[in-house]
């Protein structure tokens, strides 16, 4: 890798040993992918994936402390993934004991470190940092050093920013020196599609299911999706962006997609069209039968597959304001149709603290509360990430949550039916 004089000086230790180690990490990381150079980060804010103060992750907090002690924290402020705990979310005595006394004992310590490292504000905890209410929305062409997979794929695909699927810690290292290695999704060549996905369904495909099917097929490759614009339009409005948020998170978690193009909709597809498709690209046709096949093949991880669900999570990744309003309308209508007053399964809708703040200023908030639904800023993944919750029958419309936990996936319509009518 060719370094500038300034970068080489940092690597040589002229600005201290800690900064030299940060630079060495990035240079080795770039060398692993044959990067020719480091390029400047241009986004206003960074975003970190590590939001949890897990006792077992102590080496991470020790590393963060080294950075703080050396006084080399980045000047670039950042948002961070959601908090792992929220007392609003139902948990029994034993679960609370495990969460607070065993697992997340480093939470306060780590949040203190985050503030010192440059957290945007005390509520900047969400995987959907790009929501207007949160305020960390990169511009087209911005170079990022992010790691949260659902945010990376959204920033690349919907916003037209440029970011690789980095690991946690690499995200903050890039921000500290202000550079990231130039490879993969940062390059024009790396953003070309090696798959053409043809959507031939008879109705609007479920975002999380379509994303799952594509993710599992193309893995880390870039898909160019045709035929989806007939269902979600050719304008990046709130509804389309919410759809693409959920679609992208599923491609990234069920596979390892960091960028997708939607014909006639996402910025690079609109600008460059089919010239984005690489020579020899493979083809994948998705129809109703294919989506049904994909859903039917999800393993059921519950000990008793017929158990009655004890909890329902909607909002992984976090919901948008429009989605919160939409769910309120649908849950009210579902309860009215079934003659029930409250949801039959404890249900948690999750969103960014700032989005919830905006939601709570609308009359929808009281209406949703009246249905018995709880709102929270929690990370459902972190909540589920322990042996006690693994035994719980939890349902969700998130394919990311399904992938990483024992929760069971249902479509939005199936979830609505379960919580308002069937209770199972």
């Amino acid at each position, binding site marked *: 890798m060719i370094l500038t004089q300034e970068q080489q000086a940092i690597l040589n230790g002229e600005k201290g040993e800690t900064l030299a180690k940060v630079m060495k*990490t990035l240079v080795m990381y770039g060398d*692993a992918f044959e990067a020719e150079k480091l390029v400047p980060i241009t986004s206003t804010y960074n975003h970190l994936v*590590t939001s949890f103060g897990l006792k*077992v992750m102590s080496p991470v907090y020790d590393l963060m402390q080294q950075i703080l002690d050396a006084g080399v924290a980045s000047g670039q402020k950042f948002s961070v993934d959601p908090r792992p705990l929220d007392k609003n979310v139902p948990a029994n005595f034993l679960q609370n004991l495990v969460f607070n006394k065993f697992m997340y004992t480093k939470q306060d310590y780590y949040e203190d470190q985050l503030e010192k490292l440059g957290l945007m504000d005390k509520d900047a905890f969400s995987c959907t940092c790009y929501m207007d209410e949160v305020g960390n929305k990169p511009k087209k062409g911005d170079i990022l050093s992010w790691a949260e997979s659902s945010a990376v794929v959204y920033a690349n695909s919907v916003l037209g920013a440029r970011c690789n*699927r*980095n*690991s946690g810690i690499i995200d903050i290292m890039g921000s500290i020196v202000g550079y990231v290695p130039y490879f993969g999704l940062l390059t024009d060549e790396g953003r070309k599609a090696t798959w053409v996905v043809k959507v031939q369904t008879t109705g609007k495909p479920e975002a999380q299911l379509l994303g799952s099917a594509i993710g599992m097929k193309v893995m880390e490759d870039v898909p160019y999706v045709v035929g989806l614009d007939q269902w979600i339009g050719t304008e990046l409005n709130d509804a389309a962006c919410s759809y693409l948020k959920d679609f992208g998170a599923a491609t990234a978690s069920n596979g390892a997609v960091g960028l997708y193009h939607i014909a006639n909709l996402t910025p690079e597809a609109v600008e460059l069209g089919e010239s984005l498709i690489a020579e020899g690209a493979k083809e994948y046709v998705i129809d109703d039968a294919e989506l049904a096949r994909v859903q039917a093949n999800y393993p059921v991880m519950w000990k008793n597959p017929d158990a009655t669900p004890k909890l329902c999570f909607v909002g992984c990744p976090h919901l948008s304001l429009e989605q919160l309003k939409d769910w309120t309308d649908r849950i009210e209508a579902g309860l009215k149709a079934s003659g029930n007053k409250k949801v039959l399964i404890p249900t948690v809708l999750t969103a960014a603290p700032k989005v919830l703040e905006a939601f709570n200023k609308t009359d929808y908030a009281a209406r949703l509360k009246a249905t018995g639904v709880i709102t929270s800023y929690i990370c459902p993944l972190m909540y589920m990430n322990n042996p006690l919750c693994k035994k719980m029958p939890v349902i969700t419309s998130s394919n990311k949550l399904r992938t990483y936990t024992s929760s069971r996936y249902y479509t939005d319509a199936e979830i609505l039916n379960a919580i308002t009518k069937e209770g199972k």
Partner: protein
Amino acid sequence: MKQFKGRVVAPGTCTAEALVTTEGFNTLASFQMALQFGDKEVKCGDQNNKDLHGKPMIGKALCLPQTIGSTTGGLVLYCACAMEKNPACMLFANHIDSLAAAGAILADVWVDGVSMPVVDCLGDEFLHYVKDGMTITVKEDGVVEVE
């Protein structure tokens, strides 16, 4: 004995017993429970990985195509190394992925006294040939001997 030549991602040498998966290695799912609950053998906790689930990983020559899963994967691998709960080495048939590369490099740069050589691009034939329990020797130049 058969030799394979790969590319060195994290330097070092070692001799260890092979532990092989032909499926993607989910770093978070594999290490999480073992690190969380102090399992000295570091048994693989990924119930979706039929090759590895329940098998001890500490000190083994982990042979794999690539890692998959959460982008916390790199920091989990870094923590495993910092806690000395890591495999002896990681040997990738494919080009290393960004998460595994990050974990291996973070460990190499930031953890004192721990060596976990990482070699990638060993090829499909490597994974076809190597089996659990075989003896692996990793050399400084990326040559991997299997016997």
